[in-house]
C-alpha cells in the first residue's frame, strides 16, 4: 500500500520468529480458552469470541518511542507477534482514535494517562479486559469497569531548586504553595492531564470548597504556567523556577540523559497529601479488536512480571502488579494518597476543568 520508499522500518526478524509465532499463538489461544471458561462474562460486553491470532498487532503508543520500543522488541521475541507501533503524544492519539471511531486500524492503545482511556470508554470504543487479567491489578490503580487496565504508576511530586532550598524547606503539602511567600515561585502545566487529575483528587479528598479555595489561592499567587511536565522541570533545573508540580519520573528521565549528579532540580514526595497522589498510565483494547489474541497477549505482557520489571528498571515508574518492588529511593505506593476514585471519570474531569477555567488557568 505504501510506496517502497516510504515503507515502514524493517520488521524485526520476520523469518526467525515464524516458528515462535506458532507456539505463541497456540499459547494465547489456550489462554483465551481458559479465560472463556472463567467467569469473564460478568461485564456487560465481555466479548471473548475466539478470533484466530494472525501474529500481528497494531499498537498506538502514547509514550516515548525510546522507552517503549525495546519493550515491544522483547515482546516480539518472546511471543513471535509482530507489532506495528504508531507513536505520538497520548492526547493526539486519543484525538485520532476518537476521530477514527470503529474504523481505527489500532488494536491496542497504550496511554500516558488514564483520562484518555476514560474518554475512549465513554465513547464506547473499547473492549472489556477479561476479568482475570483486569483483577491482577489492584482496584485503586485501574479502571472500575475493566474498560482499560492500569500499567504503571507515577507519583505527583514537587520538584525544587536544590541550590536554593534544602528538602526540609520545601513544603510537604500543596496547601502551603498558596502562601504569599511562594508568590511567583511555583510552576505547573494546567492543561496537562496529570495536573488535572491531581486537582480532581484534591476535590475528592478534601471537598469542593477546599479545592476551589486552593485553585483560587494558587491562581492569585502568580503561578508560572507551562505546557508540559518536562519543560517545567527544565525550568527548575535551569534555576529559573523555584518549585514545579510534576510527575516523579520526568526527573529520572532527565537524570538518565544528563547524569543524576548534574541535576540541580531535586524531588520531594508528598506522602498523604492530595498533591502527592499516584496517576496511572494504562492500556485498552479497541472495540473492533475484542477477543483478538494478539491484543490480549500484549496487554498480558504489559502487566506480567517481566513487563512490570521493565518499567521499574527503565522508566522508574511504580509497578502496579503486586509483588514487584518499586524503584529504589521511592516511597512505597501505599504511603501515597489515593482517592479510591476513578480519576478517568470524565464528568469529574470536566468539573475540574471548569474550576481551572473559572480562575483563568485554562
Amino acid at each position, binding site marked *: *500500500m505504501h510506496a517502497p520508499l516510504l515503507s515502514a522500518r524493517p520488521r524485526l526478524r520476520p523469518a526467525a520468529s515464524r516458528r515462535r509465532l506458532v507456539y505463541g499463538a497456540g499459547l494465547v489461544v489456550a489462554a483465551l480458552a481458559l479465560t472463556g471458561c472463567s467467569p469473564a462474562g460478568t461485564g456487560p460486553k465481555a466479548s471473548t469470541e475466539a478470533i484466530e491470532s494472525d501474529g500481528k498487532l497494531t499498537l498506538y503508543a502514547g509514550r516515548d518511542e525510546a522507552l517503549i520500543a525495546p519493550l515491544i522488541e522483547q515482546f516480539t521475541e518472546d511471543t513471535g507477534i509482530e507489532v506495528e507501533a504508531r507513536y505520538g503524544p497520548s492526547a493526539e492519539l486519543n484525538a485520532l482514535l476518537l476521530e477514527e471511531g470503529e474504523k481505527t486500524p489500532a488494536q491496542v492503545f497504550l496511554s500516558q494517562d488514564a483520562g484518555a482511556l476514560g474518554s475512549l470508554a465513554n465513547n464506547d470504543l473499547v473492549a472489556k479486559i477479561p476479568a482475570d487479567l483486569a483483577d491482577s491489578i489492584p482496584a485503586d490503580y485501574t479502571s472500575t469497569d475493566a474498560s482499560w487496565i492500569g500499567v504503571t504508576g507515577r507519583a505527583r511530586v514537587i520538584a525544587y531548586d536544590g541550590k536554593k532550598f534544602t528538602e526540609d524547606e520545601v513544603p510537604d503539602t500543596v496547601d502551603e504553595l498558596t502562601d504569599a511567600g511562594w508568590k511567583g515561585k511555583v510552576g505547573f502545566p494546567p492543561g496537562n492531564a496529570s495536573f488535572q487529575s491531581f486537582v480532581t483528587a484534591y476535590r475528592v479528598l478534601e471537598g469542593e470548597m477546599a479545592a476551589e479555595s486552593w485553585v483560587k489561592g494558587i491562581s492569585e499567587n502568580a503561578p508560572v504556567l507551562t*505546557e508540559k511536565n518536562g519543560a517545567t522541570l527544565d525550568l527548575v533545573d535551569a534555576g529559573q523556577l523555584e518549585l514545579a508540580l510534576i510527575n516523579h519520573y520526568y526527573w529520572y528521565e532527565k537524570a538518565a540523559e544528563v547524569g543524576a549528579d548534574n541535576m540541580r532540580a531535586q524531588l520531594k514526595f508528598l506522602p498523604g497529601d492530595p498533591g502527592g497522589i499516584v496517576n496511572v498510565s494504562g492500556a485498552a483494547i479497541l472495540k473492533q479488536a475484542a477477543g483478538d489474541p494478539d491484543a490480549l497477549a500484549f496487554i498480558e505482557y504489559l502487566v506480567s512480571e517481566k513487563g512490570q520489571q521493565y518499567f521499574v528498571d527503565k522508566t522508574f515508574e511504580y509497578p502496579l502488579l503486586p509483588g514487584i518492588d518499586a524503584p529504589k529511593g521511592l516511597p512505597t505506593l501505599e504511603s501515597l494518597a489515593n482517592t479510591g476514585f476513578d480519576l478517568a471519570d470524565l464528568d469529574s474531569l470536566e468539573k475540574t476543568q471548569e474550576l481551572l477555567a473559572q480562575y483563568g488557568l485554562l
Partner: protein
Amino acid sequence: MSGLNEPPTSVPEPNSTSSSRRPPRPLLLLAVLACLLASIPLIYLLVRVGGSGLDDVVRVLGRPRVPRLLLNTVTLAAAVTASTVLLGVPTAFLLARARLRWRSLWVVLAALPLAVPSYLAAYGWLAAAPTLQGFWPSWFVLTLVSVPYVSLPVTAALRAGTSGLDDVARTLGRGPWRAFWLGTWPQVRPATLAGALLVCLYVLADFGGVALFRFPVLTTAIQQAYGASFNRNYAAILATVLVLLALLVVLGEQTARGRAQRQFGAVSGVATRRIVRLGRWSAPALLLLVAVPVLAVGVPVAELFVRLFEAETLRALDLANLGQALLNTLALSAGGAVIAVALALPIGALAARYRGRLVRSIESAGYLALGLPGIVVGLSLVFFSLSVVPALYQTAAVLAFAYGVLFMPKAIGAIRTSIGQVPTSLEDVARTLGYGRLQTWWLVTARLARPGIGAAALLVMVTAMKELPATLLLRPTGTDTLAVELWARTDVSAYGAAAPYAAALILVAAVPAFLLSGAGRARTDGTPA
C-alpha cells in the same frame, strides 16, 4: 489611492485584467473544486462546532482566559507582520537595487531562515538564553524566521519593476524618499502585502515557537484542549475563532491590495533599474543583511552543533534511520508540493485574470486553511479520508494530500503573480494564430509563468518538510519524517540525540530555500510573490 497607482506617464495597459470578461467555465469549475478540497478542514470544523450547542459555544467563549488568548494572538500576529515588513522591504531593496559585493551570497543568506522551523529556532535560542519567555522572544523568533516571506517576493517585484518612475518623480522635484514612495512602492505593494499575508497567517497558526516560550495564544489553547479536555468541540470552537481571524486578515489584504494591480514589469520603455550606491549607508545595510540570517539560522545551528559533536550523540547515531527519515521527508514534501501546485493553479490563474465577487471568494477561501493549526487540518483529513477513501487511510498519499491542502495558500500568491505578469496580448496572439484555449495556456501562459510555479512548489516543499502535527496524525504507521524523529527525541529531553535530525532537517530544507533565492539563476523573476 488611485492617484498613487496611476503613474504619471501614459503607459499602455498590456495586462488590463479584464473585469468585463467572464472566466471560462472549465477554469471556474476547476478552481471551485480546488477550493472545496482546500476547504475540507473548514467543513470539518463546521460539523464539529455544529455538534455542540449554542450554550457550549457561549460557555467556551465566556471563559475568563479567552479574551487574553485572543488579545495575545492578535498582538503577536500584528507585531510580527509589521516587523517582517519593516525588515523585509529594505532587505529586498538592498538585494535588488543596491550595489553589493557578493550579491548572490546575500540573496541566499536572506532566503535561509525559511529552512528553520519556528520550534527549532525557539529551541536554539532557549538553549542559548534559557530565561527567554513570553511575548518578546516569541515575536523575535517568529519575525526572524518569517522575514523571507516578505523579502523574497519583494526582491522579485523590484527586479521585475522599474526605477524609471522614481526618476520621473525626481525630475518633478520630489526628494529621493518621496520619489521612492511615489514611483517604486506602488510596484512592490502587492508583493509586500502578499508576503505579509503569509506571515500573518503563519503566526496565527504557529504552535511550536510560542509553546516553547510559554506565550499563551489560541493555538496553544487548542492544543491543550485536545491534550486534556477530551472535548473536541471545545477545541473546534477555539479553532473557529482562529479561522474568523484568518478571514479578517485575508479580506483585509484583498482590500488593501486594491483594484488596480498594475504590472509595471512588462511596461516597455521605462523598465530600467538604477543601481544605488550605498556610500555611508553601507554599514547599516550590511548589518541588516547579516543580522537576520545569523540570528535566525546561526544561533540555533551553532547550538545544535555543540550538541552534535558530543561524543555520545555521534556514537548513538543510527545512520540508516536518519537516511530513511530524510528520504521520507523529501518524497512526502515533494508529493505535497505537486498537489499544492495542482490545487493552486486554477485558483491562481483565476485570480490573476479575472475579478468579481466569486473570484475573490474563491481566492480567500483558498487561503484560510493556512490560518489553522496543523492538528485541526490533520484531524479533518482523518475524518475525510476514512469516510471517502478508507483504502488510502494512513498511506503516504493522504499525508501528501494534507501537505497540499495545508500549504496550497503559499502557492497561490506566487502563481497568481507569475501568471499575472504574462501579457494577455501574447495569449491573444496565440489565439489568433489558431491555438486552442488549452494549447495557448500550455504553450504560452504556463511556459512563461513556469519560474513562478516552480517557486511556488519549492515554497510548499520547504514548509512541508518542517510540518509536524498533521504528520503525526496522518503518516503511515512506522514512517518517520525528520520532524517526527526530532519530536520523538526532544520529547524525552534527549536533546543531544535530536541534534543530528535537526541538523539534517535544516540542511535539507536549505536546498529549496537556496533555489528559491534565485541566486543560481540569471533572471530572478521567479521568486515567490
